[in-house]
């Protein structure tokens, strides 16, 4: 039987909402895909876009950033900054050829354990569909794609 592609997803969860939301999903025994690797950050505003680029270039197939809902940030405004940053980051990644569907930003509160499981499931399915990240060691494949585009 062919082995199914299991994406590696790096997820940055804000300490105050989404991390607690993930915890609630766990204590409520809600199942969700095991593809995510959780990194706890103090705030979604702490997630430097460099973290995202670095994750992709070091082999992640998807990156997920979850924070508090707008207006609910523990630090009042961190998620508003994050929101602006990732609106631009999506466009830049897409333009450089990393599908914007590989980056996912959403808001999950501490009481939304169910929503946490849902977004993880949805995003994992989405990345599975996009397939493995094509970045390194695919010169021939990329050359063919470029020829197609120019032709």
């Amino acid at each position, binding site marked *: 039987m062919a082995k199914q592609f299991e994406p590696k997803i790096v997820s940055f969860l804000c300490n105050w909402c989404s991390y607690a939301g993930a915890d609630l999903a766990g204590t409520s025994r809600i199942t969700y895909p095991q593809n995510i690797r959780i990194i706890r950050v103090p705030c979604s505003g702490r997630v430097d876009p460099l973290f995202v680029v670095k994750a992709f270039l070091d082999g992640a197939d998807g990156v997920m950033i979850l924070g508090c809902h707008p*207006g609910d940030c523990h630090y009042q405004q961190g998620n508003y900054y994050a929101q*602006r940053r990732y*609106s631009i980051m999506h466009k*830049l990644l897409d333009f*450089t*050829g*990393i599908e914007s569907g590989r980056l996912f*930003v959403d808001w999950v509160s501490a009481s939304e354990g169910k929503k946490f499981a849902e977004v993880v499931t949805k995003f994992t399915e989405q990345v599975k569909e996009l397939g493995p990240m094509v970045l390194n060691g695919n010169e021939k494949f990329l050359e063919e*794609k*470029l020829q197609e585009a120019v032709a």
Partner: protein
Amino acid sequence: MTSMDVQIRKTAKKYLDEGKVSCVIGYERDSRGRVRPAFIEKPEDADHLIWSSECSLNLVTYLHQRKLSPGKDQPVPKTAVVVRPCDVRAVNLLFAEEQIKRENIKLIGLTCAGTEINGQQRINCKFCQERVPVIYDVLIESDQPIEIPTDKDIYADLEEMESWTAEERLAFWTKEFDRCIRCYACRQACPGCYCFECVAEQVDPHWTSIALDKPEKMFFHVMRAYHLAGRCVGCDACEAACPMDIPLSKLNRKIAKEILDMFDYRTGDTPEDAPLLTCFNPDERLRT
């Protein structure tokens, strides 16, 4: 000697004579006739200054080294700089980011009829709709007729790339970035790149190695483009400086285009505008 040269020299001499500035940054010709930046500190040297269509450098970059006070009781060096309409937006950016103070800078603004490199019109001049600086202390009118290009479709090349698949775009950029020799000329030429320690060279945290492999090059270029998001003024100094002809301005213009579309923001319109990513509007929603 053109009438513009005369006026630039006269202004520079006046500023230096009156002690308004300690240095005038402008253009001069070297012994082989090529244009290079000039740092004029004595009034009698002001006669070196010139202007021609070959003046394609962004002189605002040289303000970085002069931005800080040299010591406790020493005054911040006051500087005059010759600026084109595209450069002057970078001065506004530096004002907004509090890198330099308005009172320490004199701006010798030029109306610009366009510049060229090796006889070829520069890319940003091809689309430039703005021929008068948004801010200046002295304005020197161009002696050339100013023709604003009618080709307003400045995003045609970007739109073509947007119509490709993601894999095709990745292939394109992988190929372009593969030529990069990591010389950082793009960064040095950029008026917006003034970090004391660049991420590309930082050792702790070690973001990226100095290797010339594809991921490292990709990381450097995506990082560079992102760090200029909402800060790039579109002067194209990076692409002009690139010895490997990597189309860096495509990345910068793409981000500027999206920012104009999403936030209705253009860098360097006024000296007071806070940089886009240092503020927010609570009514905004995430756009993907």
